[in-house]
């Protein structure tokens, strides 16, 4: 697909997200009365849309203020069930996803909410790069064990952490079989501006010392109709993100029906038998775009060390 056509499709896409109907539904769910009067709003990509005036008023109060309310953090975006598909045949460990996630959440270099493992299922099969993030399971072993309801499952499928509630017992870290959670062992090294940002479980910023954190599927971006940073940062289009209810996922360039993608490419879930019901599907690494060695190209020595136990033959 040539560049300008892709750009055009993208523009049409973002505009489509903020429709008048969408805003109406959102206002209703928040229990905010519609003013009845419509105003024209310019969306970020030059789309002229008409929305109820009540939305504009709230919007002007700053998105962040609304996000900061914890009740909103726990309720979820109505009518959605987010899902991610990771195409293992395209991953070559560029690590752009890792750095994008760290940048967005102000994480230091050694803290990875999303990491790339080099998996080798058995001696004969070939190794492949495996990006791993929180799977936002439908039967989450972490949520089960939290004693204070600091980590919770939302109706839109996301599992989030409220780091203002977390007591740091780390039971959820022991309970997660995918070892996806990380802990703030000391005071996070953040600038004062970042520390002053209004907090919400949807932004997961700023990190608090003595609490647990993890990948959150960027619900603050998703609310604005934007894809999480890892999806857009990937140069190979490895991550597909979307809504299970409307049966569509996109990696920024390509949009496909989730059901078709999983059916045609034999999507599976990692360690399915644990019964955690993850919301991230993987597409097997067949017909690979790159040889696995390509993934070592731009790595630092320390990063290469991580994979020393994997036999590349």
């Amino acid at each position: 697909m040539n560049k300008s056509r892709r750009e055009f499709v993208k523009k049409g896409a973002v505009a489509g997200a903020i429709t008048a109907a969408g805003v109406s539904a959102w206002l209703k769910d928040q229990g905010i009365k519609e003013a009845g009067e419509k105003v024209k709003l310019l969306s970020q990509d030059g789309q002229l849309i008409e929305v109820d005036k009540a939305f504009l008023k709230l919007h002007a109060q700053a998105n962040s203020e609304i996000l900061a309310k914890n009740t909103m953090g726990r309720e979820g975006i109505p009518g959605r069930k987010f899902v991610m598909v990771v195409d293992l045949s395209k991953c070559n460990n560029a690590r752009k996803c890792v750095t994008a996630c760290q940048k967005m959440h102000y994480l230091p270099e050694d803290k990875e909410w999303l990491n790339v493992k080099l998996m080798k299922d058995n001696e004969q099969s070939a190794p492949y790069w495996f990006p791993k993030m929180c799977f936002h399971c439908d039967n989450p072993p972490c949520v089960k064990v939290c004693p204070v309801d600091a980590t919770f499952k939302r109706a839109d499928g996301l599992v989030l952490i409220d780091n203002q509630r977390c007591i740091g017992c780390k039971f959820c870290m022991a309970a997660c079989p995918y070892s996806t959670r990380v802990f703030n062992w000391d005071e996070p090294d953040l600038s004062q501006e970042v520390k002053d940002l209004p907090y919400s479980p949807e932004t997961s910023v700023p990190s608090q010392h003595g609490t647990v954190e993890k990948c959150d599927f960027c619900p603050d971006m998703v609310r604005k109709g934007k894809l999480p940073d890892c999806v857009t940062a990937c140069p190979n289009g490895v991550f597909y993100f979307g809504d299970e209810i409307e049966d569509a996922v996109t990696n920024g360039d390509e949009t496909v029906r989730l059901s078709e993608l999983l059916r045609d490419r034999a999507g599976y879930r990692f360690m399915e038998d644990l019964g955690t019901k993850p919301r991230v599907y993987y597409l097997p690494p067949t017909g690979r775009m790159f040889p696995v060695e390509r993934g070592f190209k731009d790595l630092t020595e320390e990063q290469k060390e991580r994979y020393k136990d994997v036999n590349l033959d």
Partner: protein
Amino acid sequence: MVFATVMSFTGHAQVAAEASLTYNKLKDNNVLLRAVLTDAQESEPLANIELGFYSIQDTISTSLGKAISNEEGVAVLQGLSFESLLQKQDHTFIIAVEVLDENYQLTSREFTFSDVNMQLSFDEIDSVKQIVVTISTWDELGNLVPLEEADAYLYVPRMFSLLPIGDVYTDEEGQGMLEFPTDLPGDLNGGLEIIAQIEDHDEFGNVAVSESVNWGAPVTYETSKLPRALWSPDAPLWMWITFIVLMVGVWFHYGWVLINLRRIKYHSSDSELINYED
């Protein structure tokens, strides 16, 4: 003074620039113009240059607006209404792009586009649901003429992007048909919006129209309240019952013992000695 005059003639040479323009007609009849400004010799994008956009009709030129190019040399002018473009009788129009920065030389480039009439309708033929796209243009006299052998791409808007569902190729009557995907989830009533786009056409640019129809699969989603479960905020009822029974059972006995202790105190005698006898 001579020196100054010489300077103005032979002053630093203007950089030659080239521009390309994409014209987008969005589905609500708004227009978006996207110009890419590059250096004519090195083909490097030119950033932070102000560009002016004009609609030209014979000798009349109306300014449509200005935009500044970003690091990739892309300048976008949006929010124009289609009506602001001056058109000839055959529904063609000319857009000119001019560099407003005097350090750069761009022969004001003119781009000609035609308007196109694209209609989306829905029909059920032989009990198969079809999307019908009809495309026509105007001749010199302004009469509608069907456009054949044109490609149009069909999409359904989803939350983050447009889901492609297929494309059509118009016949002699300017019509193309695509079978409607009936199992696609829509809204509560099965409502779906369909977008038809002409993309990257030399004459027509990028044109989009949309229509809604209730042919999608109706979707109901549960209310936000999560069920009683191990992983939800509300514990299963049997857990509560067990817990209450155990707690009441144990602490009741504690209470009983504490009451007995009070009774021991109550039954104390005033004697100094303890009754050691059995």
